[in-house]
C-alpha cells in the first residue's frame, strides 16, 4: 500500500512535469501583440492561409521589455504594438529587420509615418493623449495642454506612468514638444507636477481613478478613452486636445528573419492591412478597434471624429525614440519619485 501511494505520487509528479514542459507545437508564426484584436486576426489568417499563428498577448511595456530581453535570440516572428518611438528604440538596439514596405497604398498620413530604413510598418493610428472627464463635472473642459497648468486643475489631473505604459511615452513626448522640445519642455511637465499631477500605472488604473473620483480629468490613449466612454461608463466624455499627437500602431519583424518565416510574416502584414483584416480588427477588437486606418478603406468606427475636425501633430519618431531612455529616467526621478 505504501509503495503504491509513493509510486502514485511519483507518477503524478512526472505527468505534471511532462504537461508543464511539453514543447509547444512547431512553428508557423509567433506573434507578440499588445492589441486586443490580435488573436482574432491570427485565427482568421490561419483559416485563410493554413499558416498557424501562435498569438502571445502582452501589454505594450511588457512586450517591449520581453523583445529587448530576448535580444538577438528572438522567440518571436512578428511584433505588433502601439508606438513608432518604441519601434525606433528597438531598431537602435539593432533588433529589427529593415526594408519593410507597405503591401498596400497608404494615405498621406500613413506615408508620413514610414521610417526611411523600413524598420516598421504602420497599420493604423490612435492619439497618444486625450482628455476624459465626467459630463456632469463642473470643471471647465480644457482645450490645450497649457490649460492644464491653470489653478482650477490643481490636483485633479491624472496620467499614466510612461515607464510602465508603453503608449504613454509618445503622449509625454508630445507634451514636451508642444512646450518647446527637449529639454525646454521639462518646465511644462514640472508645472503640471507642481499643479498636483497624479501618476497611475496604465490606462485602466487612470480611468479607474477618474471613475472613483480620485481625479477629475484623465489623460489616456484615445482608444481607451473612447471605449470607456462609449461602452463602460456613459457619464464620461472625451475631449481632443489641441494639438493631438498621432500614435501609430506598428508591425516589426526581428532582425535575421529569413526564408519561409519571412515570407509568411509578410503575408500576415498584407492580411492585416487588407479590407478583410481591418474589418476583423474593427469587429473583434475592444478598445483597440477605435483606431484610424492608414489605408483609404475602410472608414474608422463611427465613434471616432473625422480627422478634419482634429488638430493633429506628429512626432519625429527617430529623434524622440533615441531620447526615450533619457526622458523616462528624468520623468521617474523628477515627476514620479518611484524607483530610479
Amino acid at each position, binding site marked *: 500500500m505504501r509503495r503504491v501511494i*509513493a509510486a502514485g505520487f511519483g507518477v503524478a509528479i512526472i505527468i505534471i512535469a511532462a504537461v*508543464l514542459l511539453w514543447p509547444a507545437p512547431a512553428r508557423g508564426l509567433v506573434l507578440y501583440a499588445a492589441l486586443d484584436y490580435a488573436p482574432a486576426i491570427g485565427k482568421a489568417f490561419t483559416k485563410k492561409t493554413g499558416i498557424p499563428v501562435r498569438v502571445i498577448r502582452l501589454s505594450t511595456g511588457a512586450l517591449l521589455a520581453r523583445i*529587448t530581453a530576448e535580444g538577438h535570440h528572438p522567440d518571436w516572428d512578428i511584433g505588433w504594438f502601439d508606438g513608432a518611438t518604441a519601434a525606433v528604440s528597438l531598431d537602435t538596439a539593432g533588433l529589427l529587420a529593415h526594408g519593410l514596405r507597405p503591401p498596400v497604398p497608404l494615405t498621406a498620413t500613413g506615408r508620413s509615418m514610414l521610417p526611411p530604413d523600413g524598420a516598421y510598418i504602420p497599420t493604423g493610428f490612435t492619439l497618444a493623449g486625450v482628455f476624459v472627464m465626467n459630463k456632469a463635472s463642473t470643471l471647465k473642459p480644457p482645450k490645450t495642454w497649457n490649460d492644464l497648468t491653470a489653478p482650477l486643475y490643481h490636483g485633479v489631473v491624472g496620467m499614466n506612468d510612461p515607464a510602465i505604459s508603453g503608449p504613454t511615452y509618445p503622449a509625454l513626448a508630445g507634451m514636451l514638444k508642444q512646450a518647446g522640445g527637449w529639454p525646454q519642455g521639462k518646465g511644462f511637465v514640472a508645472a503640471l507636477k507642481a499643479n498636483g499631477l497624479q501618476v*497611475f500605472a496604465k490606462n485602466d*488604473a487612470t480611468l479607474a481613478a477618474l471613475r472613483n473620483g480620485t481625479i477629475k480629468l484623465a489623460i489616456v490613449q484615445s482608444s481607451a478613452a473612447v471605449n470607456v466612454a462609449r461602452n463602460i461608463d456613459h457619464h464620461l466624455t472625451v475631449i481632443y486636445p489641441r494639438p493631438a499627437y498621432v500614435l501609430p500602431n506598428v508591425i516589426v519583424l526581428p532582425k535575421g528573419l529569413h526564408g519561409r518565416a519571412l515570407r509568411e510574416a509578410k503575408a500576415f502584414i498584407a492580411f492585416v492591412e487588407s479590407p478583410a483584416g481591418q474589418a476583423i480588427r474593427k469587429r473583434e477588437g475592444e478598445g483597440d478597434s477605435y483606431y484610424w486606418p492608414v489605408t483609404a478603406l475602410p472608414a474608422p468606427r463611427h465613434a471616432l471624429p473625422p480627422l478634419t475636425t482634429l488638430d493633429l501633430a506628429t512626432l519625429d519618431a527617430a529623434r524622440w525614440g533615441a531620447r526615450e*531612455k533619457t526622458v523616462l529616467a528624468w520623468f521617474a526621478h523628477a515627476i514620479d519619485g518611484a*524607483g530610479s
Partner: protein
Amino acid sequence: MAGLIATFFVYPLLRLLVMPFLSGHGAAGDWPAFAVSLLLSVGTAIVAAPLGALFALFTTTAAGPVARAATLTLWGLFLTPSYMLTTGWMIIFSGHALRATLAGQAFFGVGGLLMLYVVKALPFSALVARATLAAADSAPAEAAAIHGVPFIPRVRIGLRLLAPAMAVGFAIAVIETMQEFGIPATLGVTSHVPILTYAIYQHLAETPTDFAGASILCWRLIAVAAVFGGLAMACRRQGAAIQHGRMRPPARQRPARRRELAFAALTCLFALVGIVIPVAALFVRALQPLTASMPHPGAVLRSLGFGMVGATMSLGVAVLILRLRAAGARRMTAVLDVALVANMAVPGLVLAASYIVAFNNDLLPLYGTRLLLLIGYTAGMAPLALRMMQGALDDLDPNLVAAARLHGLPRLTRLVDIEGMLLIRPFTYAYLLVAAAIMFELPVSELLYPPGATPLGVAIVTLDQMSDYAASARLALFGLGAMAGLALLLAAGVALLAAPRRLRPA
C-alpha cells in the same frame, strides 16, 4: 551535483555581476532608492526584532491557547504572500473616500510601506529568534527566581539572554526587507517612494534593457545582505557561548494573566492587520462581478504544477546534498554548503536577472522557456529545502542502515518502510512550504515567465496595476484554495502512509 550548481548558480551570477566592470558602465544613480530602502529596512528591523524576540520567547515558554494562537499567527504571516497582503490593503484604500483620508495618504507613502514591511518581517524575526532560544538554558531564570532577584534586575538578565536572539532577528529583518519585492511591485508607482528592488526591476524592464545598471544595484543589495548576514552569524556564535552540556530548556507554563492578555492583544493586532483584514477585503472584492471574462484562467493550476514539480526537485537536491555530507564527502559538501548559503544572500530578483543574461545565447538558449523558470524556482528554493530537511536527516540513526542490512531487508524496504516513514512528516511539511513558496513566488516569475504562461503572482500584480481588483482577488483566493486542497490531499496521504499496520494473526 557540483557541475549543476556551477552551471545554474555560479556562472549566471558571475556573468551578471561582472557586467559593470566589462562594459565600463559608470556608477549608476539610484542612490536615493538604496538609501530609502536601507532606512526602511533598518526602521522595520527596529520594530520587528524586539517584537519578534518577545513573540519567540512567549511561544517557546508559554502554554495555553494564546501561545498556540500566537504561533499560528506567526506562521500565517510567514506563509501569506506579501503581494496578496498588499493587494488586500490596496482594495481597502482604492475607494476615493478612504484614499483621501490621512490613513489613505499614509498608506500610499512611507507609512504604508513600513506597516507592510513590519508585518512581513515579524515572522522572520520571530522564527529565527525561536531557533536561537530553542537552545537556551532555563537555569539562569530559575536561579533568579530562587534567589528572589527583584523585577528590574531579573528583566535585565532576561534581556541579556534575549539579546543574541534579538540581534539575529534584527539582521534577518534587515536582509528580508531589503530583498522584499512583492510589496513595492504591487504598490508600484502609486507609492512614489523609491525602492531598490523595484529600481532593479525597472532597469530590467526598460528599453533597451540596462543589465549593467541593474547589476550595480544588485551589488549593493548583496553587500547589505553580506554585512548583516555576517552580523547574524556573529550573534549566533555569541549566543552559543552561553550553552553547555547540562542545560535544560525552560518548561512551558501558563503565563501570568497580564502577560497573557498583552500577547493576546498583540496577536490579535497582527492577525487582523496581516491576515484577517486583507483576506476579508480580497473575499469581498472577489464577489463583485467582473468587467470581462476571467483573465489568466490557467494561472492557478499552472503555478500549482510548478510548485509541486519545483518542490520535488528542490527537496531532491537537498536530500542528495545531505546524503553526500553524511557519506563523508566533506570537501564537496563544504563547497556546496557555501554556494547554497551564498544563494540565500542573493535574492530571487538578482538570480532571475542573472538567468536572463546567462541563458540567452546560442549555447544555452533557455530564456523564455518553462524549463528555465523551473530551474530558477529550484535554485531559489534549494537552500530553504536544505534547512528544512537538515534536522530530520541528521536525526536518522546511521545504525538503521546497518541493522536493515543485517536483517537482509531489500533496499526498497529500507527506503520506503523505514527511512521513508521516519521522514514522512518533516518531508511533507517541507514539501508544502516549498511548493507554496514557489506557487506564490513573484520576482523569479516576473522576470523569467514564458509569454503566454503567466504565473499566478505575476497575474495578480498585473491585475492590481490595472486596478482590476475583483479579478486579482479571485485569482488570489483560488490560489489559496488550491494550495489548501494540496495540503489536505498530502495530509490524507501521510495519514494513510504512516498508519500502523495491523499484525496478521499467527
